[in-house]
Every structure is written in structure tokens, then in C-alpha cells.
């Protein structure tokens, strides 16, 4: 297991069409095993595109992506990663438990093992009492927790998250961030996390990758270095080092895109 979780090498993605759009250009990035990396940048900087490329939901027009040492497509077919989006995307006709079991049942895991794993996941995200509920009976934050549990159900060593807390209110958001930090410490999974909130990126990450738009490329990487995930608590949000890192990311964002104002980035 010496291979990096994600290795992105000189990747470009051009969307051909009436007006050719260069979404990504010359992107190089390495995410180590167990490392939490956030992608942050203004709207249209290609951070979600990069995540989709890593997930092999889209293919790069140039360059190469490997996940745990093999091509992204093989990694997808081998179920190497778990994924969560901005919308929870639960299947409304399945109970919470059945939603968490979905990837397991698609991949032929037996009934008993499925049940056991779902129980573990429900406990992990604190929804044991809601196992037999349907998604429409849950709040947005609870739905998102189910989505995270589903993404973790197969014990992936890599978790891909595309603004998973983007649609939630601030309080729910902070609570889920703390939970995610705890969960990552427990599961030892590497995470690639797309966000447009600087405090969120800083609080969660080992490293924050700052991207700039048109064409999308990496403007800078901020080493947050606030300690391992397991040691982070809510008091960190009032820590001096935390504010320093927030400032560093903000400066990287604005400096990297000095020609273009960094729209769409929340500095709250």
C-alpha cells in the first residue's frame, strides 16, 4: 500500500462544443493514503470536474489519473471509492437501512453481512433509531448523514465528496463537519472534498488545494497542519492557527486569481 490514494498527472479536460471550454489545464495533484484534501475555488474553476474525473464519471482529454496505483476506470470497477454529492441522492422508495445497504447488495454482499454493516454505519452516523424510516421523513442533515453512511458502507480507502454540506444550514453544517472529522479518524480513509467555504476546507483538511478559473488550474496548495483528524474538536474553530490557515487560504485564492475577482467563494 505504498501507492498514493490519488495521483493526478498533467490532467486537462476540454469540453468541445460551439464554444470550446477548457475546464481543467495542467493539473497535478497527489493525495496520500489517509490524507484529507479539499479542493476550493471560485465557481467554474473545475473543482467538481476534477472530482468527477477521479471518480471516472468523466474522462480527461489529456493526462492520466490513477487511484491506488491503477487507472481510474479500474478503480471504479473495483469499487475503490465511496462518493457523496451535494444532494443526498437517496432512493425514496428504500428505507434508510436499505439505502445504506444499496452498494453492498449491488456488489453481491450476503444478507447477514449487509445487515451487520448497515448497523455499524447507522451507529457511526447516529441514526440507529431511524433505520426503518424513509428519506422523506428525515431532515436534510439526516439525509446527508445517510448518504455519508452509504458512501462508507463498503469500507472504501478513498472518499470523494462534492460539496456534501453545501445545501445545509450553518449549524447543521458545523455539526456534520465535526462528525466527518471523527468518522475519517475512525475509518482512516483518504478524502477528496470539494467545497466553496474556506472555514470548512480549513477545519476539515490536511491540505487545501486552491484553484483558479478559466482555465481551471491549481493556484496554490496550503498546508493546514492543524493536527490529525482525531485531535480536532470544535474549540479548534476559535484557535489562532485555524485563523492563520483561513487567512492563508484566502490570500492564495485572491492572489492566485488577481486578474479575476474570486466570485462564488464564501468567506464566512
Amino acid at each position, binding site marked *: 500500500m505504498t501507492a498514493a490514494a490519488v495521483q493526478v498527472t498533467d490532467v486537462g479536460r476540454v469540453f468541445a462544443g460551439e464554444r470550446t471550454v477548457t475546464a481543467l489545464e495542467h493539473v497535478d495533484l497527489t493525495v496520500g493514503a489517509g490524507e484529507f484534501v479539499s479542493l476550493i475555488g471560485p465557481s467554474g474553476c473545475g473543482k467538481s470536474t476534477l472530482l468527477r474525473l477521479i471518480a471516472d464519471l468523466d474522462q480527461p482529454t489529456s493526462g492520466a489519473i490513477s487511484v491506488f496505483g491503477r487507472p481510474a476506470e479500474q478503480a471504479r470497477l473495483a469499487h475503490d471509492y465511496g462518493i457523496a454529492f451535494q444532494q443526498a441522492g437517496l432512493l*425514496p422508495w428504500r428505507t434508510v437501512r436499505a439505502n445504506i445497504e444499496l452498494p453492498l447488495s449491488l456488489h453481491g454482499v450476503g444478507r447477514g453481512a449487509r445487515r451487520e454493516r448497515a448497523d455499524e454505519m447507522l451507529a457511526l452516523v*447516529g441514526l440507529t433509531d431511524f433505520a426503518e424510516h424513509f428519506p422523506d*421523513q428525515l431532515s436534510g442533515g439526516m439525509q446527508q448523514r445517510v448518504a455519508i453512511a452509504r458512501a462508507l458502507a463498503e469500507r472504501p480507502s478513498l472518499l470523494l465528496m462534492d460539496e456534501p454540506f453545501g445545501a445545509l444550514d450553518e449549524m447543521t453544517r458545523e455539526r456534520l463537519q465535526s*462528525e466527518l472529522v471523527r468518522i475519517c479518524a475512525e475509518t482512516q480513509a483518504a478524502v477528496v472534498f470539494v467545497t466553496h467555504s474556506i472555514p470548512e476546507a480549513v477545519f476539515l483538511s490536511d491540505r487545501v488545494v486552491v484553484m483558479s478559473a478559466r482555465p481551471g488550474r491549481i493556484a496554490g496548495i496550503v498546508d493546514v497542519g492543524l493536527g490529525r483528524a482525531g485531535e480536532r474538536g470544535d474549540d479548534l474553530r476559535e484557535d489562532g492557527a485555524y485563523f492563520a490557515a483561513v487567512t492563508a487560504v484566502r490570500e492564495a485564492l485572491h492572489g492566485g486569481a488577481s486578474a479575476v475577482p474570486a466570485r462564488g467563494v464564501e468567506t464566512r
Partner: protein
Amino acid sequence: MTTGVAGEAAVAASGVMPPRTVRRRALPGPLQALRPVGLGIAAVLLLALLWEAVKALVPDDGWSIGDLRVLPRTTDLAMPHVTEMLARLGDPLTAQPGADPLWLAVLRAGGTSLRIAAVSWLIGVVVGLLLALLMTRFRIARSAVLPLVVLSQTVPLIALAPLVKGWGAKIEVLTWEPWMSVAVIASYLAFFPVAVGTLRGLTSPDALHRDLFAGYAASWSQELVHLRLPASVPHLLPALRLAATSAVLGVVVAEVSTGMPGGIGRMILEFANFASSDPAKPWAPIFGAVLLGLVASGAVALLGTGLRRYRRAEVTA
């Protein structure tokens, strides 16, 4: 953050977001279930009242503006009293001794038609589902088949009758019976809503869910079973219901155009001859046909109750 989780659980338990009520609302009590029945009966009564009101208020010769008659004649010949039509149902079919009462004859004919309609519904559903699957699986099939499917409905059923009868006569594997022609013609009407509705349903999952399944490296058949088919249920149920009423309508028309005896379609045609001598009699098979449509769509609605969980909509944050 554990307190946060516990707090949310406590909120849910304290009744701010009571999880049980939703399910109770989904399975209504007996009174709630009788509501639509009551409304239906009220509507029928209202219609009967309207009928009698028109009969009482409009002059016998109808109501004309110049030479143009805008309201029909209301003589007992043209519009028999509701009570008369109901009473006629209880009388014998003909003056012959030992003849069945009219209602029994109508029900018997209705039963024949209903059986044929059930067969044609089945054929229509199977053909419609297969077409929708084909169109979902292959984009080329969608652009090739969908216009033909739409075009097919512009061919009048009456034009099909002699064709189907003729083809049936040439089949040597089994003895082709007249009712089979009727079933095939009616299924031609029934498959359409199923094909179109199912296609819409199967293509209804959004990009997010398709991405999710792509991420799981799910096969097409897994995606079909776990995502597309369940997601299509809300579109499928009205389509099946429409297909049921279409099948009944198709059977009635096809019985008339193929000349098959024994069903309600033929009975409507035959009884129309009594319009002047026994004016209440032609109405009996018309009531029968209405009843047939209600029974057919009701039976399909019952199917839907078992699929209730697939009609839940996702409430997004």
C-alpha cells in the same frame, strides 16, 4: 457532536417531526377510504338530477335557435326517466316466457367483454413494457420506434378489424376464434399509454442517481431493477389505468367492427334498434359499458396500493 445527534433524535421523538404519522396518512382509515366512493355516488346522483332537470325544464321538442337545435328533444322516447331506465333493468330481456332479466343479460355480456379486455390489457402491457425497455436501452430505437408508436394511434380501430380478422384466419397453429381478433384489436389501443408512460418513467431518474450507479459500477440490468423500474412506478400506474380503460373501449369498438356476438359492444348495437319501441332498453348496455370501465380501472388501482412505497417523493434539503 454526539449531543447534536441526540438532540435531533429527541426533537424527532418529541413530535416536531413525528415519523409515524406519515405512514398512517399513507394508509388511511376505513372512513378515509370510503370518501372517494361517497363522492362517486354523489356525482352519479347529481348527474341523474341534472338529467331529470333538463327533462322537466326543456320543452319536448328541444330548444332551438332558428333552425339550429341546441338542446335535444326531451320526450320519453329520446330521454327516458331515470327511474324508467332502472326499472327496465329488472324486467325480462324479451317478452318470451322464461327470458332472463335485462340486468343479468347485461352483466353476462359485460363479463364476456371484461374477460377479453383483460387479455388485451395483458397483451398491451407486455408489448408496451417491452417497447419502452427497448427504447430506454437503445437511443437509436427511441428515435426509430417512438414516432411509429405515436403514428400507430392515428390508424382508426375500425380499419384494423378486417385486417386482423383476415390474418387470424390464415394462422394454422391454433384455431383462431373471433374473440382473439377483438383482443388483438383492443390491445392495439392499450399498449400505447403503457409504452409512452413507461418510457417516461424509465428515463425519469436524474443525473445524480445515474452517476451514483455509475460510481458503483452497476450493470445495466442492476440499474434497471434497482433504479429505473422503481422510479418508473409513479408514471407506470396511471399508464396501466389508462390502458385498462382503453382496453375496455377497444373491446367494445372491436366487437362492433368484427361483428362478434355475446359481448357488450354487440349488445349496444342490437339494442339500439329498440329506441322507438322500448326506449329504456338501449340504455342498459351503455350503463354496462360504463360499469366495465369502472371495474377495469378500479382493478388496476388496487394493483397500485401494493406499490405505495414507490410513490414517495424524495424531499431534498
